[in-house]
């Protein structure tokens, strides 16, 4: 048996070098000792296409992260990567550069000796109609092929504009709208016939126990890495949320 680690919502970007440093440290430390590392979405704060790895003038962050993940994978830790709502354009080019395997959203996998549903979590926020409409557009083949066909500089600009639009919209939304909908959670347990769900996205790390159709179920929410970060560790049936805490009084 080995230990599986699950992370999400790192939102790596050039603007947050300390998060990148912490992540690279994590890959060389805890992750290197694990059997598998599952990234459940939003590894990057945004992703405008896999040519981010090779384009002239592309930022070095993507290459640095791909290289570190590749070292991890070569060292014997299986790496699985799911797209999130921010890096939904992460493609096979990036995964190949990392030596990682794609993880569909949702996926049912054996985690900690139990069938477990893995999701990024954005599709559980069904009260956020505005976001779901945008998601449908952004995940459509037509939008993606049109976007990816644009020159990289234009994609950078468009991505920046989309992010600031999304930040502005978020400010007007209530916290409840941006959390998961209890109905959507129950529906996910039913549809996938699981009793355990692990997701990120909401930035509200925790462990929730609930009953669905008389069956005891559990939902684990992964921490984001904006401030300190952390992971979920699954080993021999025991799940544990480990949050790196920042130094504070």
């Amino acid at each position: 048996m080995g230990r599986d680690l699950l992370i999400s919502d790192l939102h790596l970007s050039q603007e947050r070098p300390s998060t990148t440093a912490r992540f690279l440290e994590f890959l060389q430390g805890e992750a290197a000792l694990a059997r598998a590392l599952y990234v459940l979405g939003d590894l990057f704060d945004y992703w405008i296409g896999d040519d981010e790895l090779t384009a002239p003038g592309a930022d070095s962050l993507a290459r640095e992260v791909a290289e570190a993940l590749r070292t991890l994978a070569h060292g014997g830790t299986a790496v699985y990567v799911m797209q999130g709502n921010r890096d939904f354009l992460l493609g096979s080019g990036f995964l190949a550069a990392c030596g990682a395997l794609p993880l569909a959203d949702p996926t049912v996998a054996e985690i900690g000796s139990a069938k477990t549903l893995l999701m990024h979590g954005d599709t559980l926020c069904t009260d956020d109609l505005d976001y779901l409409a945008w998601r449908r557009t952004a995940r459509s083949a037509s939008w993606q092929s049109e976007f990816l066909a644009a020159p990289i500089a234009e994609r950078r600009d468009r991505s920046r504009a989309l992010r600031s639009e999304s930040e502005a919209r978020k400010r007007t939304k209530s916290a409840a709208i941006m959390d998961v909908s209890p109905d959507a959670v129950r529906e996910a347990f039913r549809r996938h016939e699981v009793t355990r769900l692990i997701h990120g996205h909401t930035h509200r790390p925790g462990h929730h126990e609930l009953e669905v159709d008389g069956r005891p179920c559990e939902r684990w929410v992964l921490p984001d890495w904006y401030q300190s970060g952390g992971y979920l560790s699954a080993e021999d049936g025991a799940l544990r949320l480990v949050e790196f805490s920042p130094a504070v009084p």
Partner: protein
Amino acid sequence: MNLLKLWKSFVILSAAAASPAAAANPQVEVKTNVGTIRLELYPSKAPKTVANFLQYVREGHYDGTIFHRVIDGFMIQGGGFDRSYTQKPTRAPIPNEAQAGVEAGLKNEAGTIAMARTANPNSATAQFFINLADNAFLNWGDPRGDGNGYAVFGKVVSGLDVVTKIAKTPTGRGGPFASDVPREAIVIESTTLVDAK
């Protein structure tokens, strides 16, 4: 000389040795881009914490670090990140001396300096904070805190106006932090061990 006399002279000598030692507590000048703060440290009450802080001072660790967490009415925290919010490498964490400190009278009172740490009580490295109020809940043994407390190891002896200026600086989101980061960076330009005035 009889034993009593010998004992008396020993007592006098010890007392004489104790008071100059207290007067000669090390002082450190923290020069920031908004003014200078002078700290007096208490090696007899928090020996490992003071030695650790002075080692960072000698190494120049704090030069170029910022006060990244400023909460008026509570505390100002710094010494860990540079202006680009990169956490500077540190030495290994030190044991928490908060209990011995409280027993020796060192408490998180306005103007005192203490070590920041993670949820692990023995995790302080370089980051410190200056209390802006009597934060008793940060003391070892206080039931409102985690019980382990935050180790106080010195106090501001001059430049409290600079501390206040930092406390009043407008704050917001910055780097990886969602809030409490000064909008205009407050940078420690240098820290110097100085002779007590």
